[in-house]
């Protein structure tokens, strides 16, 4: 990370952009798989049982974290742009990060 970028709010931006791109690429695959339910329920169930594998569950946890991170990070951006300025920006970044990881853990614990 270049020196001028190395601060909490820039990291938050980088994560927001990366998670946004990742989710955009995931979305068509997600829709495609769900669409299978209509005519190829057996294929969908085969796919769903594949997602029970531990490694795939871990990847799914990553997706849950990305989704939660993009959502909480987005609320952070909305707060910056639409609410009065608050001086605890770094705490907000920490809270969004914490909530995202918590969402991932919640998913992982329930998947077990």
């Amino acid at each position, binding site marked *: 990370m270049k020196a*001028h*970028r190395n*601060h909490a*709010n*820039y990291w938050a931006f980088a994560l927001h952009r990366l998670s946004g791109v990742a989710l955009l690429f995931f979305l068509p695959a997600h829709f495609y798989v769900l669409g299978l339910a209509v005519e190829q329920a057996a294929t969908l169930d085969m796919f769903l049982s594949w997602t029970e594998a531990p490694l795939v569950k871990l990847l799914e946890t990553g997706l849950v974290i990305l989704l939660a991170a993009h959502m909480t990070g987005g609320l952070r*951006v909305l707060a910056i*742009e639409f609410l009065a*300025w608050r001086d605890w920006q770094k705490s907000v970044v920490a809270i969004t990060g914490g909530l995202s990881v918590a969402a991932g853990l919640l998913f992982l614990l329930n998947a077990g």
Partner: protein
Amino acid sequence: MSSETITVEIWRGKEEGEFQTYQVPRMESQTVLDIVTYVQRNLDPGLSYRFACRVGVCGSCAMTVNGKPRWTCRTHIDKVAGDGTLRIQPLRNLPVIRDLAVDMTDFFEKWTQAKAQFVPTATRADDFAQVSPDDPQRKEASAGIECINCGVCYSACDTVAWLGDYLGPAALNRAWTLHNDVRDGGRAERLKAISGSGGCQACHSHQSCFELCPKHLNPTASIAGLKRATVKAALKGEI
């Protein structure tokens, strides 16, 4: 203290060039500008750089110090060269004229494009405008008016680096202070000027400007104010 020296790497050349290394004696309360001046006066008279007031008022001496844009006259070596090395480069996002001097034309051109100048509405026959220091708009303006045009925020901003026509934190901050000046008559035209592809909507709130502004101004907050103002104007059909 004076027997110690510090190793300083300074950029020599234009866009193409190389770092040259100098040994400079350490002094108490030494600033980055002191170092550059020492090199120019004692080691390398050909070194080009820019400064004027030396006390943080004029805004001419900004350079990139160990990767971050800084006002060099008020940046102490102790603060930025903890590990004993110092690398000094010209400001980023502006064309290099030579060594540490950059061409600020684009920076000031964008202030003009943003219509970041006061448009008077009163004549000399009118009485003074009464503006209370407690007025919320006056407070917004006061928060941003101490800008010294040093270019640190412009150089720190990645959106400027990525979008050539982005007006940048300084020009937009200035536009916001004028937007909050009740005496100003240029609001509608200014809001139009600061929208569009290089306008305030392009800001991603990285906050590098806020992080590095030597005057501790907050262009990110100013730009957020402009975003809301432009939305209001657009919804009313004024833009």
